[in-house]
């Protein structure tokens, strides 16, 4: 099945990706097309699920011009949401990137839940 690739917040792509790793845009575009076609775990990328400690984030690392680029995201059924794209730097920078991605993931899930609950309430009152 085809997947939909989205972002949270709206600054992840191309905004942050362009700021952090402009040389990786062509490869990132290919990765996003691959996500659409093959889903969150395309066979030709190093996909890692980060487990409970990282709130169920997934990551893909790839190398471009001898630098590692990291994409942090999560699948929700047929939808894949990108939370952070960054160039891999020092351990402290990586830690900050994970924390930011996790915070965004929680915020996205919270907002989504809110909207769903509101819409369920609306449906109930209309019956």
């Amino acid at each position: 099945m085809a997947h939909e690739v989205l972002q949270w917040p709206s600054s992840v792509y191309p905004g942050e990706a362009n700021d952090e790793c402009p040389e990786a845009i062509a490869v990132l575009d290919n990765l996003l097309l691959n996500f659409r076609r093959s889903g969150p775990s395309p066979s030709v990328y190093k996909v890692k699920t980060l487990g409970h400690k990282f709130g169920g984030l997934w990551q893909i690392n790839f190398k471009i011009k001898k630098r590692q680029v990291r994409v942090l995201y999560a699948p929700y059924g047929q939808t894949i949401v990108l939370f952070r794209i960054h160039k891999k730097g020092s351990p402290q920078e990586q830690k900050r990137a994970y924390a930011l991605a996790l915070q965004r993931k929680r915020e996205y899930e919270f907002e989504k839940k809110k909207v769903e609950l509101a819409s369920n309430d609306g449906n109930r009152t209309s019956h």
Partner: protein
Amino acid sequence: MTEIAHPIDLNLPAKLRDKDYRQQFFLAEASARIAEQIIALRKRRNLNQKQLAERTDTKQPAISRVEQADYQNWSFSSLRKIVAALDARIRVIIEASEDVLPEYEDQAEFDFSDAPLENAVQGASPNLTLLLNSLTSNWNTQSWLGSIFPFEGRPDLSVQLAEKDAEIARLKAENKALRSSMTISTLQDYQIVSRLGVAPQQAQSGLVAEALVE
């Protein structure tokens, strides 16, 4: 379900006008396709990476590297070794960028995953149309599609499909073989096949959709 996340606009047609970008994009695409094909063929031969490495006089990590989309240090001789070990052939197609750019414009303009099916089907490549048409020799494109959605009020669509049928009839008359399998290589075809619920397992990028016609 309510979706609140923001869409991503790849803006490929505009980006591909830039020569540097498109060289990088094409290289990334080719690298991913090579890796994808090696993995698929290695699995088809029931080999693990270590076994393939032994057959190519190299080590397992080297095979792991070439099966990654970001591996771009290909030499023709190393590719030839791997391909020989997998008992396959290499086919190289070099295409002028002006000939292939329209493919990406199509992909960018339409997201067929959400489009009404009739619009999506219009985006099918000729190969997919032929493949679907050959599901049974009694079907033609119009009747096949007619079973999926009604043509009423869409004379424009009927004309297009009639043209496709005429083309298929011409190919048959010229005794040109209709392909009964194809590689799902365009996003449109993938999305169409997926949405029709036909052999979704097989309908992954780069895999041959043979199961469609069995």
